[in-house]
């Protein structure tokens, strides 16, 4: 196994999903039912290659970075070129497995979930182009390709959210996702351009190298901070961070497996991956911004998730909240823990979404059978008591819920605990105590709303006994992925110890990179941060277990034993409940500010167009018409008059003269003779 072979495998991984897309988009109609098999086989082969790369990389090239770069564009004689290339480091190897595994299992799940869909093959084609773009983001070694694939991911997300575009809400959600993402992408683009104008290269390594030599954008650390925050804007859009998080909950209009793949496990994690990838260039100030954005996001969406009743909406807000956690983890300097949470979250959140998909599938079939089109199959108030009927779904869902709540023995516990320790360390080092306080609160809230969801869905009694009797477990294509994800949610895949991940292969493989920014603006050094984390590890574990336990207990007291009536609390604080269930009025706020402003600007511009521009054009037209009329009249009267006058006068004289022309030879002769005589007479 050589490096070249690994690079060839990586290239194959990148392009196989594209091949899948091309085959399915062109021959999908012919393949119809077999489309899913084509997609599944091809993505399965990328999973296999990814596993090979993963094990080879970690076993034989543990500390190496395998890199391949070629020049794509050469701007003539100058030194400026645009290079493309791929690289494989440990982060890439891990992400390759995460993405291809989730993608493979989602393909498998979709086979029966999407059965009978009118655009079955197109669905799998779009999954293919999504996998292609996501793998591009992971494999690239430069900002340029990163940006290109970034946009491609946005496109495929748009296509998949709008899969059922006949529904207005789905079409709108797709547009919203696309436009909101674009807002973040403009920031990212600007950030990349700041770096390009300084270093004239897109390569991560060359930019970092330039920075470590002390070259700064426009010779100012402020510009470096700005570049960092602007690049982070891309992550804010794609990872649905405050204030651009509004698109992700709406994106749940797409098919549920898509939500699992794109809007839970992979695409939204791209933002986190981006932050991790360019981590060395963030200054301390930029990292503080990142940490605060993360913590604000985590808090806002956790509170919203408590008041939602749609199973997918709860999961969506929980995703936003967990993404906030990852971003916060990176922001406070816990590089490995933030990235670790991305990996563990990918498996249990994808599992949660697929589990909810399994529930919705079952509910939908029964409701469809009953010809009931009024009951919402996604509303958790219509569920309950599904535990006995869907045992596999229930048990796996329980594992995922334990993992996301941070209960020991799960992978979520390891990563979450480490992030929380990181926040404590951060507040020790910098004094930002608000971050750990909110972070722990959010951990409690997460445990609460996730158990609320679990209890309302699977425990208790179902509203309609007849309906419950008909509900049954989903087919094996849907339960197998759940079981695999559930298995991956246990600690032993990541670390030998259930309490700390620092001895596991993951922490060995993913090490926090050295910062390349000048020392006076860089965050705390790796050593001092590690020490602070170590110091706070016990506290963090104790606190996180306490808040998670409290959250779970409250959920059980309220929804299982029903000691507390949630309705009563709701009625005590009606405005708070409305505030939460209306999602902090973010959409309304944007409606009344950004969208209103855009619409007003558009209206003013339209008015300007219609009145001023059109007025000028019409005025010019009127003036030319009048001029043309005048000139036409002059033409008709004077010019034509003169011409006609000439013609008439000639005609008139002709009329006179023609009387001489009698046609009689003899009179002509007489004229000739008289004429001749006159000539003699006059000229003799």
């Amino acid at each position: 196994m050589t490096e070249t072979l690994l690079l060839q495998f990586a290239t194959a991984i990148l392009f196989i999903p594209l091949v899948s897309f091309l085959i399915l988009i062109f021959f999908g109609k012919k393949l119809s039912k077999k489309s899913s098999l084509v997609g599944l086989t091809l993505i399965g082969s990328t999973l296999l290659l990814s596993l090979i790369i993963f094990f080879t990389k970690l076993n034989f090239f543990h500390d190496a970075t395998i890199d391949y770069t070629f020049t794509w564009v050469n701007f003539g004689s100058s030194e400026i070129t645009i290079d493309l290339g791929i690289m494989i480091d440990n982060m890439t190897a891990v992400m390759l497995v995460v993405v291809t595994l989730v993608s493979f299992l989602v393909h498998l799940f979709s086979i029966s979930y999407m059965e009978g869909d009118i655009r079955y093959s197109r669905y799998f084609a779009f999954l293919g182009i999504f996998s292609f773009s996501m793998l591009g983001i992971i494999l690239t070694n430069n900002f340029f390709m990163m940006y290109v694939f970034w946009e491609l991911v946005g496109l495929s997300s748009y296509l998949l959210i709008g899969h059922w575009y006949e529904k207005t809400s789905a079409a709108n959600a797709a547009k919203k996702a696309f436009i909101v993402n674009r807002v973040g992408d403009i920031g990212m683009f600007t950030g990349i351009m700041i770096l390009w104008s300084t270093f004239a290269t897109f390569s991560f390594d060359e930019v970092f190298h330039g920075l470590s030599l002390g070259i700064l954008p426009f010779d100012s650390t402020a510009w470096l901070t700005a570049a960092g925050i602007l690049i982070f804007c891309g992550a804010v859009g794609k990872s649905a961070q405050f204030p651009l998080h509004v698109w992700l909950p709406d994106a749940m209009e797409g098919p549920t497996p898509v939500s699992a793949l794109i809007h839970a496990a992979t695409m939204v994690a791209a933002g986190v991956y981006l932050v991790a990838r360019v981590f060395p260039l963030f200054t301390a100030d930029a990292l503080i911004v990142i940490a605060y954005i993360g913590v604000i996001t985590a808090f806002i969406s956790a509170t919203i998730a408590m008041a939602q009743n749609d199973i997918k909406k709860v999961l969506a807000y929980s995703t936003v909240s967990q993404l906030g956690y990852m971003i916060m983890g990176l922001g406070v300097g816990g590089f490995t823990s933030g990235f670790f949470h991305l990996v563990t979250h990918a498996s249990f959140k994808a599992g949660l979404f697929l589990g909810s998909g399994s529930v919705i599938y079952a509910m939908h079939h029964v409701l469809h059978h009953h010809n009931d089109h009024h009951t919402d199959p996604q509303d958790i108030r219509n569920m309950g008591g599904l535990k006995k009927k869907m045992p596999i779904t229930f048990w796996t869902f329980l594992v995922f819920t334990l993992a996301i709540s941070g209960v020991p023995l799960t992978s979520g516990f390891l990563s979450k605990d480490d992030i929380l320790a990181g926040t404590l360390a951060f507040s020790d080092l910098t004094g930002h105590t608000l971050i750990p306080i909110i972070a722990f609160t959010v951990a409690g809230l997460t445990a609460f709303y996730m158990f609320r969801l679990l209890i309302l869905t699977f425990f208790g009694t179902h509203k309609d006994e007849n309906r419950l009797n008909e509900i049954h477990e989903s087919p094996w294509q849907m339960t197998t992925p759940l079981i695999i994800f559930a298995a991956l949610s246990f600690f032993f895949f990541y670390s030998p110890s259930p309490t700390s991940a620092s001895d596991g292969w993951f922490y060995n493989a993913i090490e926090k990179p050295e910062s390349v920014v000048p020392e006076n603006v860089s965050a705390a050094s790796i050593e001092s941060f590690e020490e602070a984390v170590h110091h706070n590890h016990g506290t963090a574990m104790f606190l996180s277990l306490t808040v998670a336990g409290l959250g779970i207990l409250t959920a059980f007291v309220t929804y299982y034993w029903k000691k507390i009536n949630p309705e009563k609390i709701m009625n005590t604080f009606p405005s708070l409940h409305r505030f939460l269930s209306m999602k902090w009025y973010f959409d309304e706020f944007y409606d009344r500010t950004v969208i209103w402003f855009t619409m007003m600007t558009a209206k003013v511009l339209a008015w300007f167009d219609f009145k001023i521009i059109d007025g000028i054009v019409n005025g010019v037209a009127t003036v030319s018409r009048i001029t043309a009329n005048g000139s036409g009249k002059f033409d008709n009267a004077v010019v034509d008059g003169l011409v006609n006058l000439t013609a008439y006068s000639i005609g008139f004289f002709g009329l006179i003269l023609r009387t001489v022309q009698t046609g009689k030879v003899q009179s002509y002769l007489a004229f000739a003779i008289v004429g001749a005589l006159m000539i003699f007479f006059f000229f003799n």
Partner: protein
Amino acid sequence: MSLVVSLQHFIFVSAILLSLGVYAILTRRNAIMVLMGIELILNSANINFVAFSRFGGMDVNGHLAAIFVIFLAACEAAVALAIVLNIYKQFNTVNVDEVATMKD
């Protein structure tokens, strides 16, 4: 007064012939008659040629011109008669007054 035939006599005769010819052309309605008038005019010109040749001291130049004119007159008569025949065929008359299509 001796009866010497002088140049004036010739010119006088020629002038009378010319006048008669012109008169014939202008007054006759028959195309043949008009042609005959033209012949008269040509012959008056011939008399002038010969007379001027004789009295002007020029060898036979005038005579040759006269002979040319006679040739040409013959040709002209042939062509003209052909035209007249055609006119007759076309209009069924040789009356030049009625052949007035040139007017239109």
